[in-house]
């Protein structure tokens, strides 16, 4: 029975030789899956949603986070709450709608128990049947153990002893703030809800992977871009260190990592060229406002973005498309994925339309890129059926400071080192870089 201490052999991390390997049993083993539930998902700050999804008092959404059914509610007292969506009587889901507004209470249909929007139990039909020991005040909808609202991003944690959000975030908060500084950000209406028949850790890797783009996403570069009147992209090109093309992957502590740290020298992401082409005047006006607000250098950082970054364990933010993405496993070979577009409320109509057109050109189950990622990861999971014979995946690109040959895989090693530390020691990895 694996208890975590004998999983050290699953990650082969040889910094001296420049070799990094992951044992493929981590993608299929049920015991590893249970360890992850306990030691990763239940000991992390998990992204739950954005305040713009339930902005006004009386608004709510329901969603599964970390396997638990939650109600995210904007209570009548103005507080934002994350409540566990299970009746304190006998367990039914109390709120059965995906979202709503103007709520004054939540009523469990099973026996008619009523909770207010703060989760307090306000009505129990036939309450006189209970003894004096029955304490209505102790039977409100249980809030998640910990919750934090960072500039509209709602995070929850199921470990009541977890460190503070700020401490957990390591050096990641300036990067998140860089993304949020683009404007008064909102999650746009319309959510991507999809899945992959694949282990969740494959999507962490894939979301951070620069190496696959030239091959998996060839059609995006060679068909979509020219069809839009843009230049074909060269995904393999690697520029000088310190620039986005130089793949300035930077560990941010605690397993968080960015591929492409914001830098004033970086060439702009192709999204900027697309927006300039299709909403030029509005883009220019928007840029001027950013410059006025933040100065030229900072505005460049914000507009150019921080690349693709991971907030351990499973929040992916992709600045080039303004994607927020989370994914939770329900078994070793299946995950449910949520994708949102996080865009500025103050976008003028043409600019908003162009941002969405850019988004759909790549992202989502109907886009010109994401479906091929789904295909690739499901293919890997099918390949893992041979994990007893073909035991190891190689994730060695770019070790020992080797910057030749295009994109490296440091981002993935950062993730795996933290994952390994969590599983074997229950604590953060002290150092996740090469």
């Amino acid at each position, binding site marked *: 029975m694996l208890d975590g201490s004998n999983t050290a052999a699953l990650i082969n991390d040889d910094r001296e030789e420049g070799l990094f390997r992951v044992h493929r049993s981590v993608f299929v083993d049920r015991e590893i899956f249970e360890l992850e539930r306990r030691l990763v998902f239940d000991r992390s700050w998990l992204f739950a949603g954005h305040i713009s999804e339930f902005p006004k008092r009386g608004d709510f959404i329901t969603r599964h986070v970390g396997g638990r059914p939650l109600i995210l509610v904007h209570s009548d007292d103005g507080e934002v709450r994350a409540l566990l969506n299970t009746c304190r009587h006998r367990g039914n889901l109390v709120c059965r709608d995906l979202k709503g507004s103007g709520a004054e209470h939540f009523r469990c249909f099973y026996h008619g128990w009523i909770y207010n929007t703060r989760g307090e139990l306000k009505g129990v039909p036939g309450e006189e049947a209970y003894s004096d020991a029955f304490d209505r005040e102790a039977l409100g909808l249980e809030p998640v153990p910990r919750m934090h609202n960072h500039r509209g991003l709602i995070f929850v944690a199921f470990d009541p002893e977890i460190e503070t959000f700020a401490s957990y975030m390591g050096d990641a908060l300036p990067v998140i703030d860089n993304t949020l500084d683009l404007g008064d950000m909102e999650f746009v*209406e319309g959510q991507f809800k*999809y899945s992959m028949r694949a282990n969740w850790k494959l999507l962490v890797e894939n979301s951070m992977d620069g190496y696959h783009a030239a091959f998996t996403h060839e059609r995006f570069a060679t068909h979509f871009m020219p*069809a839009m009147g843009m230049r074909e992209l060269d995904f393999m090109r690697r520029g000088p260190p310190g620039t986005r093309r130089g793949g300035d992957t930077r560990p941010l502590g605690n397993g968080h990592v960015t591929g492409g740290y914001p830098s004033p020298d970086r060439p702009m992401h192709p999204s900027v060229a697309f927006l300039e082409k299709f909403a030029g005047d509005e883009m220019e006006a928007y840029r001027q406002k950013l410059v006025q607000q933040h100065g030229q250098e900072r505005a460049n950082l914000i507009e150019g973005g921080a690349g693709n970054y991971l907030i351990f364990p499973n929040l992916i933010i992709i600045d080039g498309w303004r994607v927020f993405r989370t994914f939770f496993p329900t078994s070793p070979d299946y995950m449910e994925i949520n994708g949102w577009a996080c865009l500025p409320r103050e976008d003028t109509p043409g600019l908003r339309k162009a941002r969405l057109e850019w988004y*759909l050109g790549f992202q989502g*189950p*109907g886009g010109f890129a*994401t479906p*091929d990622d789904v*295909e690739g990861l499901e293919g890997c999971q*099918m390949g893992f059926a041979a994990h007893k014979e073909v035991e190891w995946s190689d994730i060695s690109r770019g070790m020992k400071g080797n910057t030749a040959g295009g994109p490296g895989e440091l981002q993935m090693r950062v993730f795996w080192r933290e994952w390994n530390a969590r599983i074997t020691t229950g604590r953060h990895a002290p150092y996740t870089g090469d």
Partner: protein
Amino acid sequence: MAADGHADGLGAITRQQVEDFLFAEAELLDEWKLAEWLALFDEERGSFFIPTTDAPDADPNTSLYLIADDMTRLRTRVEQLLSGLTWAENPKSRTNHMVTNVRIAGREGEALLVRANFVVFRMRFQNVDPYIGKYYYKLLPRDGTFKILERRAVLDLEALRPHGKVSFIV
């Protein structure tokens, strides 16, 4: 004067004509004759929409969609599918487009409004995934047949789970 009181030809179109058109379209898609399928669209004004599963009535100008193609995007979508570079459809999925509950819903300007229900079965790597929803068409009568002005597929699925993607033409 046509049956619905208008003086144009739209009122003379029968449901069978519309069904024949939709069934022929379904056959083109199942046979992956995508260039012929693309030719069914009005060359300049044609469009193809699939809203997200949680916001079927959203406005594509301000909200996220799964697919919101004008003809430029639809053309490159078909080219990509035929190029072999769409790995999600190479090898191709087997599909079976079942089109039913077809009815003429009215008119909008020069276009006939048509509604239908669909289940498209996708068979791929030993999985069978049903895509279930409703079609909303705006059809332009032309030369005894139709050109598609707008093709909208609204999924009744709560999520693309376990489908994972909609990489073929639903």
